[in-house]
Protein backbone atom coordinates (compact mmCIF):
# COMPACT_ATOMS: atom_id res chain seq x y z
CA UNK A 1 0.00 0.00 0.00
CA UNK A 2 1.60 3.27 -1.03
CA UNK A 3 0.98 5.88 1.60
CA UNK A 4 0.30 9.32 0.17
CA UNK A 5 2.02 12.47 1.34
CA UNK A 6 -1.27 13.72 2.80
CA UNK A 7 -1.71 10.47 4.73
CA UNK A 8 1.76 10.80 6.16
CA UNK A 9 1.19 14.44 7.04
CA UNK A 10 -2.13 13.61 8.68
CA UNK A 11 -0.68 10.72 10.65
CA UNK A 12 2.31 12.76 11.87
CA UNK A 13 0.05 15.62 12.95
CA UNK A 14 -2.35 13.23 14.69
CA UNK A 15 0.40 11.42 16.55
CA UNK A 16 1.95 14.73 17.70
CA UNK A 17 -1.46 15.88 18.91
CA UNK A 18 -2.01 12.56 20.66
CA UNK A 19 1.38 12.68 22.35
CA UNK A 20 0.63 16.16 23.74
CA UNK A 21 -3.03 15.90 24.68
CA UNK A 22 -4.57 14.30 27.76
CA UNK A 23 -5.90 10.79 27.18
CA UNK A 24 -8.49 11.13 29.92
CA UNK A 25 -9.85 14.31 28.32
CA UNK A 26 -10.15 12.45 25.03
CA UNK A 27 -11.80 9.54 26.85
CA UNK A 28 -14.40 11.82 28.34
CA UNK A 29 -15.28 13.28 24.96
CA UNK A 30 -15.31 9.83 23.37
CA UNK A 31 -17.62 8.52 26.09
CA UNK A 32 -20.07 11.30 25.29
CA UNK A 33 -19.81 10.44 21.61
CA UNK A 34 -20.40 6.77 22.42
CA UNK A 35 -23.47 7.60 24.47
CA UNK A 36 -24.91 9.37 21.42
CA UNK A 37 -23.72 6.78 18.93
CA UNK A 38 -26.82 4.52 18.99
CA UNK A 39 -28.85 7.43 17.63
CA UNK A 40 -26.76 7.27 14.46
CA UNK A 41 -26.52 3.61 13.47
CA UNK A 42 -23.93 4.07 10.74
CA UNK A 43 -22.40 0.62 10.95
CA UNK A 44 -25.67 -1.28 10.66
CA UNK A 45 -26.26 0.61 7.42
CA UNK A 46 -22.85 -0.47 6.19
CA UNK A 47 -23.60 -4.05 7.22
CA UNK A 48 -27.00 -3.86 5.54
CA UNK A 49 -25.26 -3.00 2.26
CA UNK A 50 -22.90 -5.93 2.68
CA UNK A 51 -25.71 -8.30 3.54
CA UNK A 52 -27.87 -7.32 0.58
CA UNK A 53 -25.77 -9.48 -1.73
CA UNK A 54 -27.71 -12.65 -2.55
CA UNK A 55 -26.92 -15.45 -0.10
CA UNK A 56 -26.64 -18.62 -2.17
CA UNK A 57 -26.82 -21.06 0.73
CA UNK A 58 -27.53 -21.03 4.46
CA UNK A 59 -24.88 -21.47 7.14
CA UNK A 60 -25.12 -24.40 9.55
CA UNK A 61 -26.47 -22.05 12.22
CA UNK A 62 -29.12 -20.68 9.86
CA UNK A 63 -30.23 -24.18 8.81
CA UNK A 64 -30.81 -25.15 12.46
CA UNK A 65 -32.10 -21.82 13.81
CA UNK A 66 -35.54 -21.57 15.47
CA UNK A 67 -37.76 -18.56 16.15
CA UNK A 68 -39.79 -19.74 19.16
CA UNK A 69 -37.51 -19.84 22.22
CA UNK A 70 -35.26 -16.80 22.75
CA UNK A 71 -33.54 -18.45 25.74
CA UNK A 72 -31.74 -20.97 23.54
CA UNK A 73 -28.43 -20.57 21.73
CA UNK A 74 -30.04 -21.65 18.44
CA UNK A 75 -32.62 -18.83 18.54
CA UNK A 76 -32.17 -17.11 15.18
CA UNK A 77 -30.91 -13.78 16.54
CA UNK A 78 -28.05 -15.53 18.33
CA UNK A 79 -26.07 -16.28 15.15
CA UNK A 80 -22.95 -14.45 16.39
CA UNK A 81 -23.31 -14.21 20.15
CA UNK A 82 -20.60 -15.01 22.69
CA UNK A 83 -21.71 -14.92 26.29
CA UNK A 84 -24.63 -15.56 28.62
CA UNK A 85 -28.17 -14.87 27.40
CA UNK A 86 -29.83 -12.11 29.46
CA UNK A 87 -33.17 -13.92 28.94
CA UNK A 88 -31.81 -16.64 31.24
CA UNK A 89 -30.83 -14.06 33.89
CA UNK A 90 -33.98 -12.07 34.64
CA UNK A 91 -33.86 -9.96 31.50
CA UNK A 92 -34.90 -10.63 27.93
CA UNK A 93 -33.72 -10.63 24.36
CA UNK A 94 -33.48 -6.82 24.43
CA UNK A 95 -33.84 -6.28 28.21
CA UNK A 96 -31.10 -6.07 30.81
CA UNK A 97 -31.69 -7.88 34.13
CA UNK A 98 -32.46 -5.70 37.18
CA UNK A 99 -29.52 -3.77 38.54
CA UNK A 100 -27.50 -3.87 35.35
CA UNK A 101 -26.90 -1.24 32.70
CA UNK A 102 -26.91 -1.70 28.91
CA UNK A 103 -23.76 -0.73 27.05
CA UNK A 104 -24.46 2.12 24.62
CA UNK A 105 -22.25 0.47 22.01
CA UNK A 106 -22.23 -3.10 20.79
CA UNK A 107 -21.00 -5.55 18.26
CA UNK A 108 -23.16 -6.28 15.27
CA UNK A 109 -24.39 -9.44 13.64
CA UNK A 110 -26.54 -10.14 10.61
CA UNK A 111 -28.94 -13.03 11.28
CA UNK A 112 -31.67 -14.69 9.24
CA UNK A 113 -35.12 -15.17 10.75
CA UNK A 114 -36.45 -18.57 9.63
CA UNK A 115 -40.02 -17.41 10.28
CA UNK A 116 -39.98 -14.77 7.52
CA UNK A 117 -36.81 -15.61 5.58
CA UNK A 118 -35.48 -12.08 6.07
CA UNK A 119 -32.10 -11.07 7.44
CA UNK A 120 -31.87 -8.54 10.24
CA UNK A 121 -29.06 -6.51 11.74
CA UNK A 122 -28.69 -7.45 15.40
CA UNK A 123 -27.00 -5.31 18.06
CA UNK A 124 -25.49 -7.55 20.73
CA UNK A 125 -25.50 -5.13 23.63
CA UNK A 126 -23.90 -6.35 26.82
CA UNK A 127 -25.54 -5.67 30.19
CA UNK A 128 -22.88 -4.39 32.57
CA UNK A 129 -22.24 -3.51 36.19
CA UNK A 130 -22.60 -6.93 37.83
CA UNK A 131 -20.40 -10.00 37.63
CA UNK A 132 -21.31 -12.69 35.12
CA UNK A 133 -24.77 -14.22 35.57
CA UNK A 134 -24.59 -17.71 37.10
CA UNK A 135 -27.07 -19.45 34.83
CA UNK A 136 -27.09 -22.90 33.25
CA UNK A 137 -24.48 -23.90 30.70
CA UNK A 138 -27.24 -24.11 28.06
CA UNK A 139 -27.47 -20.32 28.21
CA UNK A 140 -23.72 -19.84 27.53
CA UNK A 141 -23.57 -19.40 23.78
CA UNK A 142 -20.66 -19.04 21.39
CA UNK A 143 -21.74 -18.78 17.78
CA UNK A 144 -19.74 -17.15 15.04
CA UNK A 145 -21.58 -16.47 11.77
CA UNK A 146 -19.69 -13.55 10.17
CA UNK A 147 -17.79 -13.08 13.45
CA UNK A 148 -14.47 -11.29 12.90
CA UNK A 149 -11.20 -10.88 14.82
CA UNK A 150 -10.69 -8.04 17.27
CA UNK A 151 -9.01 -5.89 14.59
CA UNK A 152 -12.54 -5.68 13.14
CA UNK A 153 -14.07 -4.81 16.53
CA UNK A 154 -17.66 -4.09 15.42
CA UNK A 155 -18.05 -7.72 14.36
CA UNK A 156 -15.95 -9.24 17.15
CA UNK A 157 -17.75 -10.99 20.00
CA UNK A 158 -14.88 -11.78 22.42
CA UNK A 159 -14.66 -8.14 23.50
CA UNK A 160 -16.33 -7.09 26.75
CA UNK A 161 -18.67 -4.55 25.22
CA UNK A 162 -19.10 -2.42 28.34
CA UNK A 163 -17.78 0.88 27.03
CA UNK A 164 -19.34 4.07 28.38
CA UNK A 165 -21.12 2.33 31.28
CA UNK A 166 -20.57 3.19 34.94
CA UNK A 167 -18.85 -0.17 35.46
CA UNK A 168 -17.24 -2.36 32.82
CA UNK A 169 -18.09 -5.61 34.67
CA UNK A 170 -19.82 -8.06 32.27
CA UNK A 171 -23.14 -9.68 33.27
CA UNK A 172 -24.90 -10.97 30.11
CA UNK A 173 -25.66 -10.23 26.46
CA UNK A 174 -28.82 -9.16 24.60
CA UNK A 175 -29.71 -9.39 20.90
CA UNK A 176 -31.85 -6.43 19.80
CA UNK A 177 -33.09 -5.97 16.24
CA UNK A 178 -31.69 -2.79 14.69
CA UNK A 179 -33.35 -3.13 11.31
CA UNK A 180 -33.82 -5.27 8.25
CA UNK A 181 -30.64 -6.17 6.42
CA UNK A 182 -32.10 -7.15 3.07
Amino acid sequence: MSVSFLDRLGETATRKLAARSSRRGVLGRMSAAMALAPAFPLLPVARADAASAPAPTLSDFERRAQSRDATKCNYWRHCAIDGVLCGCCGGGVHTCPPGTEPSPVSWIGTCRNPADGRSYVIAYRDCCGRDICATSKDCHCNTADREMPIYRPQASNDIIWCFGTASTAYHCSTAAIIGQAS
Partner: protein
Amino acid sequence: MVGWSTKTAWRAAFSAMLMVSAATAHADTPVLQAEQNDVATLPPVAPHWFLPATAHTAYTIYDGDAGRILGTVPASSLGNIVLSPDRKVFYVADTIWSRGDHGTRQDLLQEYDARTLKLLREIELPPRALAVYKKQDFDVSPDGRWGYVFDMSPATAVTVVDLAHASVARTVDIPGCALVFPWKAGGFSSLCGDGSLTNVGYAGGAEAKVTHTKPFFDANNDPIFEQGLVDRATGRALFVSYSGKVYATTLGQDPVIGAPWSIQQAAGQPVAGTGVQDLAWRPGGAQPFAWNRASGHLFVLMHVGTYWTHKAAGTEVWELDPVAHALVRRIDLPEPARGIAVSPDAAPLLYSTAENGKIATIDVRSGAVRRTIEAQAGPMFLVPDM
Protein backbone atom coordinates in the same frame (compact mmCIF):
# COMPACT_ATOMS: atom_id res chain seq x y z
CA MET B 1 -23.86 -61.34 90.52
CA VAL B 2 -20.96 -63.79 90.71
CA GLY B 3 -21.10 -64.38 86.99
CA TRP B 4 -21.02 -60.64 86.33
CA SER B 5 -17.96 -60.21 88.60
CA THR B 6 -16.02 -62.92 86.81
CA LYS B 7 -16.83 -61.46 83.41
CA THR B 8 -15.73 -58.02 84.55
CA ALA B 9 -12.47 -59.40 85.93
CA TRP B 10 -11.68 -61.15 82.63
CA ARG B 11 -12.42 -57.97 80.71
CA ALA B 12 -10.13 -55.94 82.95
CA ALA B 13 -7.31 -58.44 82.55
CA PHE B 14 -7.72 -58.52 78.75
CA SER B 15 -7.69 -54.71 78.59
CA ALA B 16 -4.51 -54.57 80.66
CA MET B 17 -2.82 -57.02 78.26
CA LEU B 18 -3.80 -54.90 75.27
CA MET B 19 -2.45 -51.78 76.90
CA VAL B 20 0.89 -53.42 77.63
CA SER B 21 1.25 -54.69 74.06
CA ALA B 22 0.29 -51.26 72.68
CA ALA B 23 2.85 -49.58 74.87
CA THR B 24 5.48 -52.04 73.65
CA ALA B 25 4.61 -51.27 70.00
CA HIS B 26 4.83 -47.48 70.56
CA ALA B 27 8.21 -47.89 72.18
CA ASP B 28 9.60 -49.16 68.84
CA THR B 29 8.69 -46.00 66.82
CA PRO B 30 9.72 -42.42 67.57
CA VAL B 31 7.15 -40.01 68.94
CA LEU B 32 5.83 -37.64 66.22
CA GLN B 33 7.37 -34.20 66.67
CA ALA B 34 5.60 -30.84 66.78
CA GLU B 35 5.69 -29.08 63.37
CA GLN B 36 6.40 -25.57 62.14
CA ASN B 37 4.32 -24.30 59.24
CA ASP B 38 6.43 -23.15 56.33
CA VAL B 39 5.97 -22.02 52.72
CA ALA B 40 7.05 -23.96 49.65
CA THR B 41 9.19 -22.42 46.94
CA LEU B 42 9.38 -23.48 43.32
CA PRO B 43 12.33 -25.03 41.50
CA PRO B 44 13.49 -23.28 38.31
CA VAL B 45 10.84 -23.22 35.57
CA ALA B 46 11.00 -26.54 33.70
CA PRO B 47 10.11 -27.25 30.04
CA HIS B 48 7.15 -29.42 30.98
CA TRP B 49 5.44 -26.84 33.14
CA PHE B 50 2.21 -25.41 31.85
CA LEU B 51 -0.17 -22.78 33.20
CA PRO B 52 -3.82 -22.98 32.14
CA ALA B 53 -6.28 -20.21 32.99
CA THR B 54 -8.32 -21.84 35.74
CA ALA B 55 -11.70 -21.24 37.42
CA HIS B 56 -11.71 -17.56 36.35
CA THR B 57 -9.41 -16.80 39.29
CA ALA B 58 -5.86 -17.77 38.40
CA TYR B 59 -3.23 -19.31 36.18
CA THR B 60 -2.38 -22.60 37.87
CA ILE B 61 1.17 -23.92 37.54
CA TYR B 62 1.25 -27.61 36.65
CA ASP B 63 4.13 -30.04 36.34
CA GLY B 64 3.10 -31.81 33.12
CA ASP B 65 5.14 -34.95 33.90
CA ALA B 66 3.78 -35.49 37.41
CA GLY B 67 0.36 -34.05 36.55
CA ARG B 68 0.24 -32.10 39.79
CA ILE B 69 -0.17 -28.49 40.85
CA LEU B 70 2.98 -26.63 41.89
CA GLY B 71 1.44 -23.24 42.66
CA THR B 72 -1.05 -20.57 41.68
CA VAL B 73 -0.63 -17.15 40.05
CA PRO B 74 -3.76 -15.04 40.68
CA ALA B 75 -5.50 -13.52 37.65
CA SER B 76 -9.10 -12.84 36.64
CA SER B 77 -10.58 -14.36 33.50
CA LEU B 78 -9.61 -11.11 31.76
CA GLY B 79 -6.00 -11.31 33.00
CA ASN B 80 -3.05 -12.05 30.74
CA ILE B 81 0.15 -13.77 31.83
CA VAL B 82 3.69 -13.76 30.44
CA LEU B 83 6.82 -15.47 31.77
CA SER B 84 9.80 -13.11 31.50
CA PRO B 85 12.38 -14.26 28.91
CA ASP B 86 14.89 -14.97 31.72
CA ARG B 87 12.15 -17.07 33.43
CA LYS B 88 12.58 -15.16 36.69
CA VAL B 89 9.19 -13.44 36.95
CA PHE B 90 5.60 -13.94 35.89
CA TYR B 91 3.90 -10.78 34.64
CA VAL B 92 0.12 -10.55 34.96
CA ALA B 93 -1.79 -7.73 33.26
CA ASP B 94 -5.21 -7.54 34.89
CA THR B 95 -8.15 -5.27 35.63
CA ILE B 96 -9.99 -5.02 38.94
CA TRP B 97 -12.56 -2.74 40.53
CA SER B 98 -12.17 -1.35 44.03
CA ARG B 99 -15.59 -2.69 45.05
CA GLY B 100 -15.79 -5.94 43.12
CA ASP B 101 -18.16 -5.14 40.26
CA HIS B 102 -17.95 -1.35 40.56
CA GLY B 103 -15.99 1.47 42.11
CA THR B 104 -12.62 2.64 40.87
CA ARG B 105 -11.29 0.67 37.93
CA GLN B 106 -7.67 -0.31 38.32
CA ASP B 107 -5.56 -1.69 35.49
CA LEU B 108 -2.35 -3.22 36.73
CA LEU B 109 0.76 -4.98 35.58
CA GLN B 110 1.69 -7.29 38.45
CA GLU B 111 5.10 -8.89 38.79
CA TYR B 112 5.43 -12.19 40.67
CA ASP B 113 8.73 -13.85 41.62
CA ALA B 114 8.86 -17.18 39.74
CA ARG B 115 10.51 -18.98 42.72
CA THR B 116 8.39 -17.67 45.60
CA LEU B 117 5.30 -16.37 43.73
CA LYS B 118 5.53 -13.30 45.95
CA LEU B 119 4.05 -10.13 44.46
CA LEU B 120 7.11 -7.96 43.79
CA ARG B 121 5.71 -4.86 42.09
CA GLU B 122 2.49 -3.43 40.69
CA ILE B 123 2.57 -0.94 37.85
CA GLU B 124 -0.55 1.13 37.17
CA LEU B 125 -1.70 1.05 33.55
CA PRO B 126 -4.12 3.01 31.37
CA PRO B 127 -7.34 1.03 30.70
CA ARG B 128 -6.52 -2.27 28.98
CA ALA B 129 -8.58 -3.98 26.31
CA LEU B 130 -11.03 -6.35 27.97
CA ALA B 131 -11.62 -9.47 25.88
CA VAL B 132 -11.73 -13.12 26.74
CA TYR B 133 -8.84 -15.49 26.12
CA LYS B 134 -6.37 -13.62 23.97
CA LYS B 135 -2.74 -14.13 24.84
CA GLN B 136 -1.91 -11.55 22.18
CA ASP B 137 -3.30 -8.76 24.39
CA PHE B 138 0.01 -8.61 26.26
CA ASP B 139 3.64 -9.54 25.69
CA VAL B 140 7.16 -8.65 26.73
CA SER B 141 10.12 -7.75 24.50
CA PRO B 142 12.73 -10.55 24.13
CA ASP B 143 15.29 -8.58 26.16
CA GLY B 144 12.77 -8.28 29.00
CA ARG B 145 12.97 -4.48 28.94
CA TRP B 146 9.50 -3.53 27.63
CA GLY B 147 5.98 -4.75 28.26
CA TYR B 148 3.39 -4.20 25.52
CA VAL B 149 -0.24 -3.97 26.71
CA PHE B 150 -3.06 -3.74 24.15
CA ASP B 151 -5.66 -1.06 24.98
CA MET B 152 -9.16 -0.56 23.61
CA SER B 153 -11.42 2.27 24.68
CA PRO B 154 -12.79 1.40 21.96
CA ALA B 155 -10.06 3.34 20.11
CA THR B 156 -7.02 1.05 19.99
CA ALA B 157 -3.55 1.71 21.36
CA VAL B 158 -0.63 -0.08 22.97
CA THR B 159 0.85 0.94 26.31
CA VAL B 160 4.60 0.41 26.40
CA VAL B 161 5.75 -0.34 29.94
CA ASP B 162 9.34 0.26 31.03
CA LEU B 163 9.86 -2.91 33.08
CA ALA B 164 13.27 -1.82 34.34
CA HIS B 165 11.79 1.30 35.94
CA ALA B 166 8.30 -0.10 36.67
CA SER B 167 6.54 2.74 34.85
CA VAL B 168 4.54 3.44 31.72
CA ALA B 169 6.93 4.74 29.06
CA ARG B 170 4.28 5.89 26.61
CA THR B 171 1.14 4.90 24.75
CA VAL B 172 1.16 4.48 20.97
CA ASP B 173 -2.11 4.76 19.05
CA ILE B 174 -2.67 1.99 16.50
CA PRO B 175 -5.91 3.11 14.82
CA GLY B 176 -7.70 0.28 13.03
CA CYS B 177 -5.25 -2.29 14.40
CA ALA B 178 -5.11 -4.59 17.41
CA LEU B 179 -3.02 -6.99 19.54
CA VAL B 180 0.77 -7.14 20.03
CA PHE B 181 3.36 -9.36 18.34
CA PRO B 182 6.87 -8.50 19.61
CA TRP B 183 9.87 -8.27 17.29
CA LYS B 184 13.23 -9.84 17.99
CA ALA B 185 14.28 -6.38 19.20
CA GLY B 186 13.05 -2.81 19.27
CA GLY B 187 9.29 -2.95 18.85
CA PHE B 188 6.12 -4.82 18.00
CA SER B 189 3.59 -5.26 15.21
CA SER B 190 -0.22 -5.36 15.31
CA LEU B 191 -2.80 -6.86 12.93
CA CYS B 192 -5.03 -4.36 11.13
CA GLY B 193 -8.58 -4.38 9.81
CA ASP B 194 -7.44 -3.65 6.25
CA GLY B 195 -5.42 -6.88 6.12
CA SER B 196 -2.06 -5.30 6.92
CA LEU B 197 0.37 -5.05 9.81
CA THR B 198 1.27 -1.84 11.61
CA ASN B 199 4.80 -1.80 13.00
CA VAL B 200 5.84 0.27 16.00
CA GLY B 201 9.56 0.79 16.57
CA TYR B 202 10.33 2.05 20.06
CA ALA B 203 13.60 2.06 21.99
CA GLY B 204 12.82 4.56 24.72
CA GLY B 205 12.33 8.32 24.70
CA ALA B 206 9.41 10.20 23.22
CA GLU B 207 9.51 9.06 19.62
CA ALA B 208 7.91 5.91 18.26
CA LYS B 209 8.37 5.07 14.59
CA VAL B 210 5.21 3.67 13.02
CA THR B 211 5.12 1.98 9.61
CA HIS B 212 2.45 0.00 7.74
CA THR B 213 2.76 -2.97 5.43
CA LYS B 214 0.68 -3.39 2.32
CA PRO B 215 -2.48 -5.45 2.92
CA PHE B 216 -1.40 -9.10 2.58
CA PHE B 217 -4.53 -10.99 3.68
CA ASP B 218 -8.21 -10.69 2.84
CA ALA B 219 -9.73 -9.36 6.08
CA ASN B 220 -13.24 -9.45 4.60
CA ASN B 221 -13.33 -12.97 3.24
CA ASP B 222 -10.55 -14.93 4.97
CA PRO B 223 -9.27 -13.04 8.03
CA ILE B 224 -6.23 -14.06 10.04
CA PHE B 225 -6.87 -15.53 13.48
CA GLU B 226 -6.00 -13.26 16.40
CA GLN B 227 -3.98 -16.08 17.96
CA GLY B 228 -0.90 -15.75 15.72
CA LEU B 229 2.34 -17.09 17.17
CA VAL B 230 5.65 -15.33 17.68
CA ASP B 231 8.98 -16.86 18.56
CA ARG B 232 10.39 -13.94 20.51
CA ALA B 233 13.94 -15.27 20.13
CA THR B 234 13.84 -14.88 16.35
CA GLY B 235 11.05 -12.38 15.74
CA ARG B 236 9.45 -14.85 13.37
CA ALA B 237 5.67 -15.14 13.41
CA LEU B 238 3.12 -17.57 12.00
CA PHE B 239 -0.30 -16.14 11.18
CA VAL B 240 -3.09 -18.50 10.13
CA SER B 241 -6.32 -17.54 8.34
CA TYR B 242 -9.83 -18.88 9.03
CA SER B 243 -9.54 -21.16 5.99
CA GLY B 244 -6.11 -22.48 7.05
CA LYS B 245 -3.59 -20.41 5.08
CA VAL B 246 -0.30 -19.87 6.92
CA TYR B 247 1.60 -16.59 6.52
CA ALA B 248 5.18 -16.97 7.81
CA THR B 249 6.41 -13.50 8.70
CA THR B 250 9.62 -11.99 10.04
CA LEU B 251 8.48 -9.06 12.14
CA GLY B 252 10.25 -5.72 12.28
CA GLN B 253 9.94 -2.14 11.07
CA ASP B 254 9.56 -3.60 7.55
CA PRO B 255 8.18 -7.11 8.01
CA VAL B 256 9.01 -9.81 5.47
CA ILE B 257 5.83 -11.77 4.71
CA GLY B 258 6.07 -15.13 2.99
CA ALA B 259 3.65 -16.47 0.37
CA PRO B 260 0.76 -18.22 2.13
CA TRP B 261 0.52 -22.02 2.13
CA SER B 262 -2.43 -24.23 3.00
CA ILE B 263 -2.45 -26.45 6.08
CA GLN B 264 -4.88 -28.80 4.36
CA GLN B 265 -2.83 -29.02 1.18
CA ALA B 266 0.28 -29.80 3.27
CA ALA B 267 -1.70 -32.69 4.77
CA GLY B 268 -2.90 -34.02 1.41
CA GLN B 269 -6.45 -32.81 2.03
CA PRO B 270 -8.67 -30.55 -0.10
CA VAL B 271 -8.02 -26.84 0.43
CA ALA B 272 -10.81 -25.34 2.59
CA GLY B 273 -13.07 -22.84 0.86
CA THR B 274 -14.89 -19.85 2.34
CA GLY B 275 -18.44 -20.86 1.45
CA VAL B 276 -20.91 -21.38 4.30
CA GLN B 277 -21.52 -24.96 3.15
CA ASP B 278 -17.91 -25.84 2.21
CA LEU B 279 -17.23 -28.80 4.48
CA ALA B 280 -13.52 -29.31 5.13
CA TRP B 281 -10.87 -29.75 7.79
CA ARG B 282 -10.39 -26.32 9.38
CA PRO B 283 -8.47 -24.68 12.22
CA GLY B 284 -10.63 -23.53 15.12
CA GLY B 285 -11.03 -22.92 18.83
CA ALA B 286 -10.05 -20.25 21.32
CA GLN B 287 -6.31 -21.01 21.36
CA PRO B 288 -5.96 -23.09 18.20
CA PHE B 289 -2.19 -22.87 17.58
CA ALA B 290 1.07 -23.84 19.27
CA TRP B 291 4.72 -23.75 18.20
CA ASN B 292 7.43 -26.09 19.46
CA ARG B 293 10.73 -24.25 19.63
CA ALA B 294 12.98 -27.37 19.48
CA SER B 295 11.55 -28.68 16.19
CA GLY B 296 10.08 -25.47 14.83
CA HIS B 297 6.88 -27.39 14.17
CA LEU B 298 3.45 -25.77 14.14
CA PHE B 299 0.54 -27.49 15.93
CA VAL B 300 -3.00 -26.70 14.83
CA LEU B 301 -6.31 -27.67 16.45
CA MET B 302 -8.45 -29.00 13.56
CA HIS B 303 -12.10 -29.95 13.09
CA VAL B 304 -14.35 -30.79 10.16
CA GLY B 305 -16.74 -27.92 9.55
CA THR B 306 -18.00 -25.20 7.28
CA TYR B 307 -16.78 -21.61 7.06
CA TRP B 308 -17.62 -19.54 10.19
CA THR B 309 -16.78 -22.48 12.46
CA HIS B 310 -13.51 -20.80 13.48
CA LYS B 311 -14.47 -21.03 17.16
CA ALA B 312 -15.53 -24.69 17.05
CA ALA B 313 -13.70 -27.24 19.21
CA GLY B 314 -11.09 -29.39 17.46
CA THR B 315 -11.01 -33.18 17.31
CA GLU B 316 -7.42 -33.57 16.06
CA VAL B 317 -4.12 -31.72 16.34
CA TRP B 318 -2.04 -31.56 13.17
CA GLU B 319 1.71 -31.19 13.55
CA LEU B 320 3.20 -29.39 10.55
CA ASP B 321 6.69 -28.45 9.40
CA PRO B 322 6.27 -24.80 8.43
CA VAL B 323 9.55 -24.76 6.46
CA ALA B 324 8.78 -27.81 4.31
CA HIS B 325 5.00 -27.02 4.28
CA ALA B 326 4.48 -30.66 5.21
CA LEU B 327 2.34 -32.63 7.64
CA VAL B 328 4.40 -34.45 10.28
CA ARG B 329 1.58 -36.27 12.07
CA ARG B 330 -2.07 -36.10 13.05
CA ILE B 331 -2.88 -36.62 16.72
CA ASP B 332 -6.35 -37.78 17.81
CA LEU B 333 -7.65 -35.98 20.89
CA PRO B 334 -9.47 -37.95 23.61
CA GLU B 335 -12.26 -35.36 23.49
CA PRO B 336 -12.87 -32.17 21.49
CA ALA B 337 -10.66 -29.30 22.67
CA ARG B 338 -10.94 -25.50 22.54
CA GLY B 339 -7.31 -24.71 23.36
CA ILE B 340 -3.89 -26.31 22.95
CA ALA B 341 -0.29 -25.68 23.96
CA VAL B 342 2.96 -27.56 23.36
CA SER B 343 6.06 -27.67 25.55
CA PRO B 344 9.16 -26.02 24.03
CA ASP B 345 11.57 -28.99 24.30
CA ALA B 346 12.65 -31.88 22.05
CA ALA B 347 10.46 -34.43 23.91
CA PRO B 348 7.30 -32.37 23.62
CA LEU B 349 4.08 -32.70 25.55
CA LEU B 350 0.83 -31.49 23.98
CA TYR B 351 -1.80 -30.04 26.31
CA SER B 352 -5.43 -29.83 25.21
CA THR B 353 -8.34 -28.32 27.12
CA ALA B 354 -11.78 -29.85 26.64
CA GLU B 355 -14.97 -27.83 26.97
CA ASN B 356 -15.58 -29.41 30.39
CA GLY B 357 -12.33 -27.92 31.71
CA LYS B 358 -10.34 -31.19 31.69
CA ILE B 359 -6.80 -31.10 30.33
CA ALA B 360 -5.23 -34.05 28.52
CA THR B 361 -1.43 -34.26 28.45
CA ILE B 362 -0.32 -36.14 25.34
CA ASP B 363 3.08 -37.46 24.29
CA VAL B 364 3.50 -35.81 20.88
CA ARG B 365 5.75 -38.51 19.41
CA SER B 366 3.51 -41.46 20.29
CA GLY B 367 0.16 -39.68 20.41
CA ALA B 368 -0.54 -41.47 23.71
CA VAL B 369 -2.58 -39.70 26.38
CA ARG B 370 -0.42 -39.64 29.50
CA ARG B 371 -2.88 -38.04 31.87
CA THR B 372 -6.26 -36.39 32.12
CA ILE B 373 -6.41 -33.63 34.72
CA GLU B 374 -9.57 -32.15 36.27
CA ALA B 375 -8.21 -28.62 35.95
CA GLN B 376 -11.34 -26.39 35.73
CA ALA B 377 -9.43 -24.84 32.86
CA GLY B 378 -10.35 -22.28 30.26
CA PRO B 379 -8.86 -22.65 26.78
CA MET B 380 -5.80 -20.40 27.31
CA PHE B 381 -2.37 -21.66 28.37
CA LEU B 382 1.08 -20.35 29.08
CA VAL B 383 4.08 -22.59 28.46
CA PRO B 384 7.73 -21.52 28.93
CA ASP B 385 9.49 -19.55 26.20
CA MET B 386 6.78 -19.36 23.51
